[in-house]
């Protein structure tokens, strides 16, 4: 099954990349935007039992995909392959 992981900087952590993007959006005329944060998106296929997948994915996030000092994470486990827009 397909899994999607979203890693974002913790609130309170300096995010100069997010700010730079926000400034660029503003200069393009999108003045309504604020609080831009730049994160990371990882997707993968997981061949594990659905009951175990969430716990395994959680371990993956805590050990490697996200640095708990500076990042938060959440994930979605899809039903089938090709389940995306």
């Amino acid at each position: 099954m397909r899994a999607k992981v979203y890693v974002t900087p913790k609130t309170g952590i300096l995010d100069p990349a997010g700010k730079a993007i926000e400034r660029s959006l503003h200069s393009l005329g999108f003045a309504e935007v604020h609080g831009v944060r730049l994160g990371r998106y990882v997707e993968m296929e997981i061949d594990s039992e659905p009951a175990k997948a969430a716990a395994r994915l959680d371990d993956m996030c805590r050990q490697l995909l996200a640095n708990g000092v500076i990042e938060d994470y959440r994930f979605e486990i899809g039903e089938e392959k090709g389940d995306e827009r």
Partner: protein
Amino acid sequence: MRWGVVTFPGSLDDSDTTYALGRVLGEQVTPLWHKDRSLQGVDCVVLPGGFSYGDYLRPGAIARFAPIMAEVVRFARDGGLVMGICNGFQVLCEAGLLPGALIRNRSLRFVCTQTVVRVEEAETPFTRACRQGDLLRLPIKHGEGCFVAAETVLQQLEEERQVVLRYVDAAGRVTDEANPNGSLNNIAGIVNRTRNVFGLMPHPEYACESAIGGEDGARLFRSIRTTATGGSAVLAASVPSGL
């Protein structure tokens, strides 16, 4: 004493560290390959600068799982001396051997320049050849050198005197202008609670010869040498090579 310098795929300053220690300072250096499972009895392990694993995912995030790192962690937990320079500092934070994390420079630019750092703590194995308040001129070259940590962790670092080096101006003042990357509290280098693991963003290995800018970096290496060869040293357990 013997120094171990680790090479990960993508390490850059391993050879310069080996050169500075071996050729300039006359030390015995043992190269340690990332796949090795033995530290070969070295007295101090150095994790060098560079772009291990291309900085993929996060700088140091993948290097921390290299086979050699299991030995480095064990060595550190047993009180062995470990020094992480730049990418090495990032690896130590990712490995949980040092608190906090290094993130993208607040300017978003890769910064390559000379800095002045002030010795905040001379009572460490890494700075005992210095006096508190000494100013060291050390170069930096990094894109992700901004040290951050939770407020409580930062407080603990300051209270427990774990901040070893701080970015200052030429007169020794802690100012925002003197901060090259946005590090909280202008922190350039820290030690762990037991003061045997040291991480710093500046490069002492590029400051061991006056011909290329100065010799202040040698004082850190000499401090380690004094510690490792003196009575108060904590030496690594001897591990026969080949294991």
